[in-house]
């Protein structure tokens, strides 16, 4: 009964989180991420410039006391655009993450739990989605649905779920044979019960990690799409379309603040999210439960 003398009873999620907070890099990631989130979400309350206010008299100016991070080619404040862009990039990344996580989980879960036939059919579908050359898929999809925030979200979500489906399916195929799931089936559990009571909690590590990394991935994909001119359309700011400016050599060379700040923000944010994701992976790793 020795182990019963432990005080309190932390659930698996709480334990994972406490492991997470022991991970230095992950905490650093979080420490970077939280201020970025707070800043992007609140900037309009405290920053006097608006992201789309043009000032043709103050174009391409370097950082100054008026424009902390300088101004862009139409005299918009880079700081305001950076923060608004962050908001948009994070919005796109988060929403597309939610959609693709949802799709990925359910498709993978159904393949994993619903038996051979469904599994085979679903997985061929997933294979197909993965065989599609991403460039063509992206370009074509983007020209069909157009560009802008919603289409970008749509495109990114559609591009990303198959990977998750595969992981979820693999986990559930294995889970299906695990004793506690067998026990549940032995008590008469149906598909829905298994999915919600066992499938979901036991893929939570995959989901959490995927979701985190997918946010990072989403930011990168958005940037890539915008770079190709397909993502979030200007004048709405996003980190990707701000970076697009660096394609012009003169901007790259003469107005480094116009791309360095969004580029830096993007890399740092993605890096921080990756740190967090990696920390979560370790924290939620089922093997760490054994220790």
């Amino acid at each position: 009964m020795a182990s019963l003398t432990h005080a309190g009873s932390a659930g698996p999620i709480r334990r994972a989180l406490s492991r997470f907070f022991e991970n230095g890099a992950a905490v650093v990631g979080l420490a970077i991420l939280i201020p970025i989130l707070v800043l992007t979400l609140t900037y309009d309350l405290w920053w006097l410039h608006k992201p789309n206010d043009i000032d043709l008299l103050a174009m391409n100016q370097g950082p100054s006391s008026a424009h902390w991070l300088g101004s862009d080619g139409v005299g918009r404040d880079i700081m305001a655009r950076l923060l608004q862009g962050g908001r948009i990039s994070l919005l796109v990344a988060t929403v597309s993450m939610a959609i693709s996580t949802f799709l990925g989980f359910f498709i993978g879960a159904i393949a994993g739990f619903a038996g051979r036939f469904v599994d085979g059919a679903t997985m061929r579908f997933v294979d197909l989605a993965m065989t599609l050359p991403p460039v063509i898929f992206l370009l074509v999809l983007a020209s069909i649905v157009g560009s802008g925030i919603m289409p970008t979200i749509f495109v990114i979500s559609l591009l990303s779920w198959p990977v998750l489906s595969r992981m979820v399916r693999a986990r559930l195929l294995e889970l299906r044979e695990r004793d506690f799931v067998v026990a549940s089936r032995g008590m008469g559990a149906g598909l829905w019960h298994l999915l919600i009571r066992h499938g979901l909690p036991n893929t939570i590590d995959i989901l959490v990690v995927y979701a985190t990394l997918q946010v990072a991935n989403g930011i990168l994909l958005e940037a890539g799409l915008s770079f190709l001119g397909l993502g979030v359309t200007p004048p709405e700011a996003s980190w990707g379309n701000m970076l697009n400016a660096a394609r012009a050599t003169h901007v790259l060379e003469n107005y480094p603040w116009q791309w360095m700040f969004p580029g830096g923000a993007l890399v740092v944010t993605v890096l921080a999210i990756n740190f967090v994701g990696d920390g979560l992976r370790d924290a939620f790793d089922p093997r760490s439960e054994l220790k």
Partner: protein
Amino acid sequence: MNAESILEISGLTTVFRIGDREIVAVRDLSLAVATGETVALVGESGSGKSVTSLSIMGLLPRGVGRIAAGTLRLKRKTGEVVELQTIGGDTLRRVRGNDIGIVFQEPLTSLNPVFTIGEQIAEPIRIHMGKSRQEALSDAIQRLEDVGIPDPHRRARQYPHELSGGMRQRATIAMALACNPTLLIADEPTTALDVTIQAQILDLLGRLQKERGMGMLFVTHNLGVVAEIADRVAVMYAGSLVETGSVARVFSHPRHPYTKGLMRSVPQLGTATLLREAGTPLPTIAGSVPSLMDLPSGCPFAPRCPYRIEVCSEAYPALADAGEGQFSRCIRWQEI
């Protein structure tokens, strides 16, 4: 060092670092293995048996486990006596596989899945006996034959997963014996096996040990196995050696309440029917094995002990000499 001993452990204390705490996995363990002798180390899961064998081999996980105290003296093939806890690097490497062979519990996981059986057995032969690849391989086939594997030429070319459990365990034994070590450590070599296969392996080990006159440290948790194979037995509980002596002595007159309880709680073939028909429950040891993270003060067995008195939970008992080479870590050993 005693003339006959190959291995003399005295006062071995091994600790593990877990987070910012240290746990004592083996505490003040003294034990000797003589040439031609089989010593069994028994105890329940987590009692420190494997840690003891790993300590001897210097294979404690780096940065996590370390020998905190004690000496481990080994008489090498050359007759030279070394202290295993102090030598390191190359010398230790030359001891491993050459002077000491070890067989692990899980034959599947302790064989490398991507190399053939032959290659894996040949490896220590090449390292320690300086033979060529070809020679080593034919030696390996010879070793496979020694451990009773039929058709050793074919088997040598196969991968671990292509062999049955018993066959794999024979292969790991062949590997441990490849360089004719003077000491064999067998860490629960039969636990993962079926009884009929276990009987084969025990028979094999017993025979090989006699033939070669090796010393053998045999780790197990099965008292039946101890009786089958060992000359002397050492019983561990929660990291401590609680009782040691010749098998005959300990089995007929256990001097520690844990040993006694353990022996009684295991149902015996033939007698179990009587118990069932009489409706008597099996004798048990109350409670469960304590976690090393929070060992009780004093005697670790005290909370479960029917002979417990107050002092038991105050002081860690010393190993008391019960005569005829039998020792017990119980202050009331005489009453048992």
